[in-house]
């Protein structure tokens, strides 16, 4: 049986009158890439923020390596975040810094490494995402794809156990999308201890990278399984989403 990295149980969250998560239960296996798909506005990003401990649920349990993080105090929750890396939708690079300083930032904040050691680590990280000579560029000089790569380097630099991606290929051209997909897969394969969780609505990308897929619809997981499960399902809601059809139960 696969080891469970993150386990969600009956997760609920509402904002005012709007019920975003209505009891999400899902197991995210350790050492694999899990992709959560769903339409925009179905609460995928909210779910990701819960996993990271950036939001607290109204009800439900989030277990990270068996420990329920919803019961942790602020200080413990902050320590828990050391185990995570997050790649934001538009990379969220600090635009007051250059690429090198962006990637070095988590090390300077949280490690006792000397500057030459940081330099070695940052350059190795930049090389691994294919941006060997981009260290001196300012964040706002980069293309969308390069920003995402720097985002991955920054999230990976401290060697996290969990790597979360918020719609990593939104707004990229098809070739760049394929490159980022390959980067997600390569990063996972090069780090067997890593657990990756990707939020996406790009089906082609999902089939390329996912070990496990879960579909979120109206605040609940309606199907989970492998790419095969999703190709073969009869659920009309999943079929409509996977095939990108206008007609169907999802309006």
């Amino acid at each position, binding site marked *: 049986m696969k080891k469970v990295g993150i386990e969600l149980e009956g997760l609920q969250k509402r904002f005012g009158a709007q019920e975003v998560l209505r009891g999400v239960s899902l197991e995210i296996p350790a050492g694999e890439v899990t992709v959560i798909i769903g339409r925009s506005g179905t609460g995928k990003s909210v779910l990701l923020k819960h996993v990271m401990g950036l939001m607290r649920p109204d009800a439900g349990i989030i277990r990270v390596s068996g420990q329920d993080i919803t019961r942790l105090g602020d200080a413990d929750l902050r320590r828990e975040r050391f185990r995570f890396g*997050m790649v934001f939708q538009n990379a969220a690079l600090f635009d007051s810094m250059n690429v090198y300083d962006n990637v070095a930032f988590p090390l300077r904040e949280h490690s006792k490494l000397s500057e030459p050691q940081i330099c070695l680590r940052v350059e190795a990280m930049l090389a691994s995402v294919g941006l060997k000579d981009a260290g001196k560029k300012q964040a706002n000089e980069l293309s969308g794809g390069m920003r995402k790569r720097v985002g991955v380097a920054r999230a990976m630099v401290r060697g996290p156990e969990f790597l979360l991606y918020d719609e990593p290929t939104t707004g990229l051209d098809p070739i760049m999308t394929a490159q980022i997909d390959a980067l997600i897969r390569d990063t996972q394969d090069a780090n067997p201890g890593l657990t990756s969780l990707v939020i996406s609505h790009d089906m082609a990308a999902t089939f390329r990278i996912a070990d496990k897929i879960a579909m979120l619809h109206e605040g609940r997981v309606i199907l989970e399984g492998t790419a095969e499960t999703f190709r073969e399902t009869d659920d009309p809601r999943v079929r409509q989403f996977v095939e990108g059809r206008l007609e169907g139960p999802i309006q």
Partner: protein
Amino acid sequence: MNAVSRLGARIISVVEGVGRYVGFLLRSLRGGLLPPYRVRILFKQMHFVGVESLLIVMVTGIFTGMVFAVQANIGFSRFGAESLIGAIVTLSLTRELAPVLTALMVNGRVGSAMAAELGTMRVTEQIDALDSMAVDAHQYLAAPRILAATLMVPALTMVFNVVGVIGCWYVAVKQLSVTPGAFQARIEWWVDPDDLLGGMIKSAVFGLILSSVGCYKGFTTSGGAEGVGRATTTAVVISGVLILTSDYFMTLILAPLSVG
């Protein structure tokens, strides 16, 4: 919804907003007191708030001193008391004009910039990124800005005082008929260090207000570029109003300091 419940809802939202602002301020101040100390960011912000505001504060200060000298002369010349121009202008500057005008000028430049910068960081998820890296955004972003403004607005106010008095001296001595000796003697006679101290205390509070409101509005920005624009404008307006209203109450509190 009828008018009464609309009014009630509005009052509740204002009170909630004040509560959130105070919570933000306390959390930021606590962040500033606890390690790690962000000395480099603090110096960078002090340079931005202080050094880069120097020119506008000096220009405002010198012309304020000059125009008040001209105005005071209109009154005092009616009963031959022109030698008091220096003293009355210096009193007005140190107690009131320099702290308030400096704060309003710095608010326009710095308060708006803080709201815009942090607001942009909020809508582009840079503040979430800090949180995700277990870095306290209040400590990293807000605390150095608030501390820098609380220290530098009094320093700028002091500059305003000095150039204001120089402006006043130029008009009184060079253009009107006051002798340099009388100008100086009257100031020494009428103006106490306590007048200066009261103004400094006020300006530190103004610095705290304009920076914390700017940072708070930045932190709570939502809604993309339009949201950033709205946050910037609101920050400047709220700070401006708070500076002027708090000035009145601080004057009442500080008055015994220099009357006795």
